[in-house]
């Protein structure tokens, strides 16, 4: 679908939410919600998006919305979806619905991981969207298991002896693929049509779907607000955040940079990696490059691109 056609879809997530200026979660949410063709019930894990979009007595959601707690967005939407199935079966309601849960990386990779895994295994007809900004941004930039190696966060600070986060991020998308659910995709807002197509696909499949979407946080990344979308393109061009999808177990690459860029370019534009460019830390950037190359190679192989 061309964007000007996409713009004819109805607005489901309104302005007047209180996400930071330049927050990547804004366009991600807006585009995904516009991809739903049914009325929806949206669930959200505690986090930036939830806090900013539903400050009493205001809701930025034109659909029904439920926030329960931090770690249980998937379980909560499981319950809503089960209620819908039961009430439909009994003829008490008639309307088809889409069921969506949004969680940040903290609410998805970490504290909400068990609830997410359970919901996916049980096969609820729901779409789980992780807007991955790589740390606990809502509480003030603490490291999560999605935080990339080297990042300076308030709980993995760059200090005199430890140069920021020492571990590589968890590959949650792969773990979700291992749940053998019908659709899993990794997406990014710099490709809005790809993101919307993936969201539509996720809504259409019968059963659970999982979308992992990169959502820059200018505050946590120490990047400029206007660079939010540009950075997600750099992430794809450096292969730090590749775009791919897995439909019924079959891997497919969605973006192959014409000229693969060095991770340097990704790291340099974000204050959270600033310390890596200090003398003596060169090896960390080299190792990140090596790790990124290996990961990219694996994805290419899985997608049948080599």
């Amino acid at each position, binding site marked *: 679908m061309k964007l000007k056609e996409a713009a004819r879809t109805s607005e489901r997530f309104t302005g*007047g939410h209180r996400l930071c200026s330049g927050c990547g979660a804004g366009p991600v949410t*807006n585009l995904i919600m516009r991809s739903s063709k049914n009325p929806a019930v949206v669930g959200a894990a505690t986090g930036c998006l939830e806090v900013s979009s539903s400050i009493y*007595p205001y809701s930025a959601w034109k659909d029904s919305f439920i926030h329960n707690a931090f770690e249980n967005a998937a379980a909560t939407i499981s319950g809503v979806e089960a209620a819908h199935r039961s009430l439909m079966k009994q003829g008490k309601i008639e309307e088809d619905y889409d069921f969506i849960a949004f969680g940040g990386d903290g609410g998805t990779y970490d504290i909400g991981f068990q609830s997410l895994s359970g919901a996916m295994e049980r096969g609820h007809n729901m779409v789980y969207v992780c807007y991955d900004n790589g740390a606990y941004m809502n509480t003030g930039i603490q490291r999560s298991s999605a935080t990339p190696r080297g990042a300076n966060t308030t709980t993995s600070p760059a200090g005199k002896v430890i140069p920021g986060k020492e571990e590589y991020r968890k590959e949650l998308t792969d773990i979700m693929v291992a749940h053998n659910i019908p659709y899993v995709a990794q997406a990014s807002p710099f490709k*809005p049509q790809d993101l919307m197509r993936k969201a539509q696909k996720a809504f259409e499949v019968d059963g659970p779907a999982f979308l992992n979407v990169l959502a820059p946080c200018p505050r946590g990344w120490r990047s400029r607000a*206007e660079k939010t*979308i*540009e950075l997600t393109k750099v992430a794809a061009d450096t292969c730090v955040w590749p775009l791919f999808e897995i439909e019924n177990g079959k891997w497919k690459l969605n973006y192959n940079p014409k000229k693969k860029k060095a991770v340097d370019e990704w790291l340099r534009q974000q204050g959270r990696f600033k310390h890596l460019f200090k003398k003596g830390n060169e090896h960390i950037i080299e190792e990140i490059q090596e790790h990124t190359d290996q990961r990219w190679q694996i994805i290419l192989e899985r997608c049948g691109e080599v």
Partner: protein
Amino acid sequence: MVKAGDGYKDIPKGGIILDAGNAKNYKTGGWRTKRPVLDKEKCINCHLCWAFCPDVSILSENGVVSDQIDYDHCKGCGICANECPVNAIEMKKE
């Protein structure tokens, strides 16, 4: 609509919000220090600004990007200007 200062007997129970989407009534335009201004002459109607706007403030009517930006909600992040492939949007000081 719940109003500031309402008592416990006046508001819906349990914190339920009955007016879905009423955040539209909450103005975040005051957060802005620079405002995007769209030059219709230059605009190629690619809709990238529309897609990327975090505040749903670039409006499209009948498939055409409007130069009437929703300044009630635009926070002035500058993504639209940064991403415009033909530099049709300029960030101007408030």
